[in-house]
């Protein structure tokens, strides 16, 4: 984790969505950092989220997943860039988990107040979305998902079992195919 973090580039531009061109520069840096993070994840077999933004880079959506006891748990991710960004950290949301755990604000905003926010404050403007994912979302999932699973609030992704089954039976079946299928039906498959 530390190694991953140190390999992520730190951001330099201190600009929010209302800062015009400067925000574009900032956005570029955000993307570069995210691309780097994803690449590292892919190389180390520790890939754990997908993300994309709108054209302006103010609204971000994607998916996060967590594998616990050989089962994959996957959730939608959604957040907006606050007006005061980067002085204020983005409020990462997992809407599906709203009401399932105490470590969460209304609307599925995960609770990062205690650990992550002070860290962020200290690192304005060096930290960006990639850092928020690595230092905020990652640890939150690692801490919360096992609890939720044990409390039987979550059921694993059946598709994951299916996927392993397909791959085991027919190694030629490419992952893309499965994933493509998975991507379409993910809402249905994740049941609560």
């Amino acid at each position, binding site marked *: 984790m530390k190694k991953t973090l140190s390999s992520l580039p730190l951001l330099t531009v201190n600009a929010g969505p209302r800062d015009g061109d400067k925000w574009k520069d900032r*956005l570029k840096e955000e993307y570069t950092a995210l*691309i780097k993070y*994803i690449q590292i994840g*892919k190389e180390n077999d520790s890939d754990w989220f*997908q993300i994309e933004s709108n054209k302006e880079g103010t609204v971000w959506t994607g998916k996060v997943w967590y594998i616990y006891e050989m089962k994959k748990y996957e959730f939608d991710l959604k957040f907006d860039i606050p007006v005061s960004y980067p002085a204020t950290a983005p409020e990462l949301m997992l809407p599906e988990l709203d009401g399932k755990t105490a470590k969460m604000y209304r609307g599925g905003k995960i609770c990062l107040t205690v650990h992550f926010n002070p860290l962020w404050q200290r690192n304005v403007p060096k930290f960006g979305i990639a850092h928020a994912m690595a230092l905020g979302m990652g640890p939150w999932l690692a801490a919360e998902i096992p609890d939720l699973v044990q409390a039987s609030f979550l059921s694993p992704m059946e598709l994951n079992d299916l996927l392993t089954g397909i791959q085991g039976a027919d190694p030629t079946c490419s992952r*893309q195919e499965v994933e493509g299928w998975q991507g379409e039906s993910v809402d249905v498959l994740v049941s609560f």
Partner: protein
Amino acid sequence: MDEIEALQALLGAVQKQETRPRLSERNCRELLIKLLSNGLVTLIVNLDGNEYVTPEHLEKEIRDEIVVNGGRVKITDIQTAVNVDLRHVQDRMDKILSEDSSISMIDGEVLTSGIEIRHHDSIPDRNSIAKNGLHSARKDGRGMLYTDTYIERQEACIRGTFSALTRPTTLASLQSIFYFDESLFDQKVESLIKEGRIKGTLSGKGMRAVYTPEIFIRSQLSAAKNFFNQNGYIEYSTAEKMLINNPKSFLSKEFGNLGFALRSCFVSSRLVEQCIEHIRAKATADGDRLHAALKSDLVSPAAAQDDDDDDDGGRGKKKGGKKNVKEVEEEEEDGKKGKGSKRQELKEAAAKQKEKKGKGGGDESSAKKIDKGGKQQQGSSFDYDGETSKFVKDFLKSSSDDHEMDFASEDFIQEVVVSLRSKAKDIYHEIANSLFTSSATKRVKNDELQSKFVLLYQQLSLFRKGISFFSDETAAAMEKYLLKTLCTDIVNLVLESQCKAHGISFSATAEDRQKLQPSLTQEAAGTLSSFQELVVKILNSDGGDEAAMAEAAALSETVRSLASTKEGLSKACVSSEK
């Protein structure tokens, strides 16, 4: 904006890339363990525990190592190079050796056939190898190669060391000091002994063997012989000190016909003869010798003393061989020598002595009589032997009348005389001794008396001097007092000493003095009068003043009166005796 779109597209593309599947090290290891436990692969784990090698590859690596090291390498070096347990390396090496005859292993070193020849070139003494060729190098059973020079050098060292040895030594101790080549050492020693180059014997096997040099055996034997010849015997403990093992058997082997092995020593037959001779001589001459002693004893005590000394000397001389003599006698008891007749003699003599002792009281009295007679006749030419034997004869005759026995044989009388003489001599010595000691004590007592007297006299003169300063009346009274005290003390002192000399009890009172006078003999009176004269003389010489003279006169008066009384009394005593 384009750039951002490009980046967005890139992000999307990156996200769509396939994740490279990755196994953690732990997983890999678990899989490997599973494979190994199922016997699907055979692997050797290296010493770090993070590498595996198949046995086939290990063998290849070992071969490579041998080649890399120029065909000669220690197996431990191979082990460090391939970094697996030595056991695996050895297993593989065994396989290689069994398959490949060109490779051999000597003392943990792997050699290829090519290297053995090259090996000789690396020996420092290259010239000798070249001269002698390869034939000079020998190969022993274990595949070791030696050059002749090496062997010769070892042999020379061994030869030198063993030639210098003078006492038994174990091979191991020599090896530990001189670091001989162990593989050559014992063989060389054996061969040198066989050749006769080193003289000695080797007992035991291998490095534990003990080498005993011949010179040691010889010197041991000669030492034992010398001792034996000089002393006529040799004790086993002495022999053991000479490092002779099992001395009894050794000595009987070496001097078998020269003597006898006894319990604790080996005695020469010469010494035995001597002892026997001695006993015989003693037995026969005993009587004569004692006769002579008796005679000289009676003539003068000094001579007797000398004779005693002689006796003691003789006894001292005999003491050394005493044990041997005893043992010789034992030997004789065994009946090895036909000395029965002599023994008979000894027994008879002993029996006679016993008989004589049985007479008890009679002997005692006769001893006293002889003693008395001897003393009375001292200084005159007197036939003591004849007189004594005559006396004994008479006595025996008178007693035999009572007991109806015949003791008249000359021999028997002789024996009795001898026995009585020894007793008489003892008594004589006792008396002489007591006389000597009493005279010594007397002298000490006289000295004491003298010092006391001088002290008293000094006091007396001092007081008299003092008195002379007083008026006449007082002086006269004081002088009287002085007479009563100090002068009386002096007289008492003299009297007491005299009384002691004559064995009379004395207490210092006037009545006692009076009583005492008759019991003092004439001799004592003489002493007293002479004492009186002496006192007068001292007083006269003391300066001659009147007072002193008067005092001396008073003192002499006292003494004289004392003496005269005594004289009279003693005269009376004598007459009454008459």
